[in-house]
């Protein structure tokens, strides 16, 4: 693929992520904060999000698996953190899954919480995969001497 084609693919792919609700306007805010003096900002903050989320999801799995009884306060605290960080990077579907999760925590509902944990994990791995695809395409564009056409997204 030549640079122009890759750039076009990047624009279409990014637009589809917004359209399908994987990303919201907060992700656009991140893209706006990236510039020549901070060219890797989005990748850096999203990488922090990946590490942080995986830690939280592991902790959540352990806490919910407790045979002696689930500490819903702990579960809620973790979900609150995950909701916050997903909201901060614009990972809309993850954030929404966390919102649903918290209401089951409020009810101390184990079945509901287990389903929600599964849902949150699914959404997380989906958006992780999509963002990794996006970043990989960006790397290829830059390696081929082009620039990432952020201004072609239209709504920024």
């Amino acid at each position, binding site marked *: 693929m030549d640079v122009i084609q890759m750039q076009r693919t990047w624009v279409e792919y990014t637009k589809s992520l917004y359209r399908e609700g994987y990303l919201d306007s907060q992700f656009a805010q991140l893209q706006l*904060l990236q510039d020549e003096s901070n060219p890797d*900002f989005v990748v850096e*903050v999203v990488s922090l*999000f990946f590490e*942080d989320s995986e830690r939280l999801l592991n902790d959540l799995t352990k806490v919910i698996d407790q045979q002696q009884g689930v500490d819903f306060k702990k579960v809620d605290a973790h979900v609150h953190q995950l909701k*916050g*960080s997903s*909201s*901060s990077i614009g990972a809309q579907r993850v954030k929404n899954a966390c919102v649903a999760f918290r209401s089951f925590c409020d009810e101390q509902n184990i079945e509901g919480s287990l389903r929600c944990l599964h849902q949150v994990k699914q959404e997380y791995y989906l958006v992780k995969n999509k963002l990794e695809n996006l970043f990989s395409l960006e790397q290829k564009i830059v390696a081929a001497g082009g620039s990432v056409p952020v201004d072609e997204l239209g709504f920024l």
Partner: protein
Amino acid sequence: MAAAGTESLRWNLAEEVGVSGCNGSGSEEFHVLAVDDSIVDRKLIERLLKSSSFKVTAVDSGTRALQYLGLDGEKSTSAVGFNDLKVNLIMTDYSMPGMTGYELLKKIKESKAFKEIPVVIMSSENVLTRIHSCLEEGAEDFLMKPVKKSDVTKLKDFMVKGDQAEKGKRSSIKRKMDDDILKLTMPPTAIASSSSEVEDQSSSASHSPSSSSSSPCSSPCKRTRLQ
């Protein structure tokens, strides 16, 4: 004796003029202490603030914030004894494990050294009672997360206006200082004949002579930030 009197007066006024700078070490940059337990949010707030030309120190807890300011009782750990590290603004997350942003706000407002520093609270939850208590406790503003570029731009404007008012006050204090020193060096007869002038000077100087009467640093620029 007259000479000694002049010296101590000059020193006192110089102290008053030097101590209330809103800028750190004479540079044009404001220094923000950002407090948030989330590493993602720390990264984000740091980039947001730097893109508006703030200097940033980001810490992960209220305890660390107090340590940085030297308010934790350990006098030797304070980083802010030096002008370069002077904090002009504190931005803190509300929900943090251990010390909440509200508790941190209270500690700062209780401290003589730091109560004049504006404190902004950030939260992902729009809870009216929470917002109300923070504002009551002296928070300058309450921002909904995720914090946006427009929020930071407004903060920058607020800080710049406060700094301009402060500079206005300082230059008028300096003018008064120069006047007073001049009068102290005048021969006794000259002072006696101009004593009524001196009184007029001092009474007019007790009202703030600068055009903007109060520094926005001590009074809030806007009270609520409800979505």
